[in-house]
């Protein structure tokens, strides 16, 4: 008897439960992560992507904004291509994000990655940094024009950067050179394994100059430093420790270069997850902890939501491919 009534109950309860389930899922359009989020920096620790990933993870945790922990993971290699290839296999996974910036466009254009930005889901653009040109503190070059005059005279002088040929630092300096009246491809660009590696070599006098991210260079500049900055690629001077560094335009070279940074997700990431993350990041940008970190690192907020960011990436691809083909580096 009991068993029968139980069965009956079950018969009634089942559809009820299903209904209840449907209702909660309808109400809770809001998706939330069910485990920690793998936040991939497609490079070694210490670089721009890594700093973004670790700073965001820290601020999110400090401010208690996210339901789950953001775990920073480094997947270095191939200027990002190794990480992209791994993430591309993880289609639809809502618990995996990665930091991105111009190499996401440049590396595929140079033919060094099977995957480009259209293979992934744009989540949000976060902020922007700029390129900075550094020389040794005791260098004879006082401004950019000195440096480029010397480069014109002796094209063998080497400029180091932290990424592969045809990638961000190279494009940035090649574009600058052509704006300064030199043959863009004449710059003897030496790729190092990272901005830090390039700066060590500059300190030791092994190369003439370095181009790297302004944020990455902050710790190396200032009083007692062995390095000196000649110019930044921003439209206006930056704040903080870099307030003394003139822009390219101030020195008569009409050229700017943005190192935008953003977050992308796995291919075909569910829409609810994208909405969750873009809102989360927008909220994060409003916090004091983020403000403080950005000031320290010389970042300027430049938020865009998923849709805007996607359109922006398409624009950037068009722009970069025309620059690259001018330079003879387009390899598609």
């Amino acid at each position, binding site marked *: 008897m009991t068993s029968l009534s139980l069965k009956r109950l079950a018969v009634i309860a089942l559809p009820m439960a299903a209904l209840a389930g449907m209702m909660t899922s309808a109400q809770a359009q809001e998706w939330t992560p069910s485990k920690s989020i793998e936040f991939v920096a497609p490079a*070694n*620790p*210490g670089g721009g992507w*890594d*700093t973004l990933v*670790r*700073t965001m*993870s*820290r601020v999110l*945790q400090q401010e208690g904004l996210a339901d789950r*922990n953001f775990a*920073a993971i*480094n*997947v*270095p*290699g*191939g*200027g990002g*291509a*190794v990480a992209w*290839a*791994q993430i591309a*296999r993880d289609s639809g996974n809502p618990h995996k994000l990665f930091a991105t910036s111009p190499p996401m466009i440049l*590396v595929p254009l*140079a033919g*060094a990655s099977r995957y480009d930005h259209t293979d992934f889901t744009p989540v949000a653009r976060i902020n922007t940094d700029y390129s900075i040109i550094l020389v040794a503190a005791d260098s004879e070059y006082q401004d950019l024009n000195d440096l480029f005059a010397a480069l014109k005279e002796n094209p*063998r002088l*080497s400029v180091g950067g932290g990424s*592969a*040929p*045809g*990638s961000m630092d190279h494009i940035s300096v090649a574009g600058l050179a052509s704006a300064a009246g030199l043959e863009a491809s004449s710059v*003897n660009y*030496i*790729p*190092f*394994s990272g901005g*830090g*590696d390039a*700066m*060590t*070599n500059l*300190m*030791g*006098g*092994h*190369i003439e100059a370095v181009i790297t991210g302004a944020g990455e260079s*902050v*710790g*190396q500049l*200032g*009083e*007692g*430093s*062995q390095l000196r900055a000649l110019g930044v690629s921003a439209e206006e001077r930056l704040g903080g420790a870099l307030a003394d560094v003139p822009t390219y335009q101030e020195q008569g070279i009409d050229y700017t270069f943005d190192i935008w940074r953003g977050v992308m997700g796995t291919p075909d990431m569910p829409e609810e997850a994208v909405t969750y993350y873009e809102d989360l990041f927008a909220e994060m940008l409003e916090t004091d902890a983020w403000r403080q970190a950005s000031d*320290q690192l010389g970042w300027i907020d430049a938020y865009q939501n998923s849709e805007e960011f996607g359109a922006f990436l398409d624009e950037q691809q068009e722009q970069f491919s025309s620059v690259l083909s001018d330079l003879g580096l387009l390899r598609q």
Partner: protein
Amino acid sequence: MDALNNLMYGFGIALEPINIAYVFAGVFAGTIIGMLPGLGPISALALMIPITFAMEPSSGLILMAGVYYGAIFGGSTSSILLNAPGVAGTVATSFDGYPMAKKGLAGKALAIAAYSSFVGGTVSVVFLMLVAPLLSKVAVSFGPAEYFALMVLGLTAVVSLSDKSLVKGLIAAVVGVMISIVGIDMQTGTERFTFGSINLLDGIDFLVVALGIFALAEVFYMLLRGGGGKEAPRNAIGSLKLTRSEVKEIAGPVSRSSVLGFFTGVLPGAGATIGSFLGYSMEKRIAKDGHTFGQGNIKGVAAPEAANNAACTGSFVPLLTLGVPGSGTTAVLLGALLVMGVTPGPMMLEQRPDVFWGVVASMYIGNIFLLVLNLPLIPLIAKILDLPKPLLLSLILIFCMIGVYGMSFSVFDLLLLLGFGLLGLGMRLFGFPAAPLILALILGNIMEESMRRALQISGGDWMTFVDKPISLSLLLIALLSLGLPLLKKRRKRAIAE
């Protein structure tokens, strides 16, 4: 005197009860991590970043540094007992440590490793304290050309590591360089020898090769010899005590390797692994009984152990004084420091002396902890050798597989491990030495990258390698170390005739 004052100040920080607890926790966790193959200090430290970011920066770095040098300290255990290096820096320790264990001298080998590590660690902290600011100049004086020369010098060790046949040693070294080339080329972004496989894009991890060629090959070899092989002798551990003459014998190698290791560590990119190989091959050349290296010579355990611990401390020089990480592990430490709001670099000594001197002082304490912690553990851990052979072999097998899988979570890497195990077995059966392959694998990549960078800077002019004094002297030393043994041999032959 300044240094003494600073050190006192540092001890003031390091001796705070909470910091003593952190040192202890760090070195204890490090020892365990080091003993397990695969779980290296890099992944352990990356996992700790969220724990440390709320901590006082000096405490955070004290804890994390403890894990790092603790892991190098503990890594020798599995190298000696199982021929399965726990961390890359202790591969060279297995060359003589494992033969000693097979002879029933495991206890002595582990004790020597502990003492040598202690001396290497302590000597190098003294160096770190006295000359760190000056040494940052040495670190930056190494450009691409100098690195190339250093790697060439390192590769000459192939001669001393190929025990019987030089030709076979060279063949093994070439294979090592070939393995190091696999993956995306950092200079151009081109894939090399990946055969279209996504799993090879990142190259082949050093530990996969080391565990395969040493530990797995050993397992296969023992299986091949069948059950007829003699059982491990009773009391396989042997005594921990060193005789006075043994202490005298290793005193020289330990002190030389401590200094050599420290300076290798100071150079960004060189680190503990290269330091230990250089220490080992240097001692093998100097020693009168050099030909017994590889058969269980105590100097062959002492030298690499002193060198790798010294190099580990040395790698803090570029990190703290330049803000530039010299290795994967110190890169994670740099990231952790940034997260804690400390920017290492030229200004750190002035701005955050508490972090710098606190960590330096804590390293003295940590090294003592490590010695006290490890010595009593030796008889316990070494008991593993008393296990019946079938159990021991399966244990090594499981150890290796967990280690490799834990690193990359990739089944492909397990297959690679198996492949390298078979390669190692083949090499053993046909008399090819494994050490040159490993050495070439470590050095090959840096050597190639540095050479191409140097040539690009010089505009393709090869004279760049001899124009620079550091590079020229390193290349000359390399030439000497190649030429002298050959000359000696010829003279011997001439006398014999």
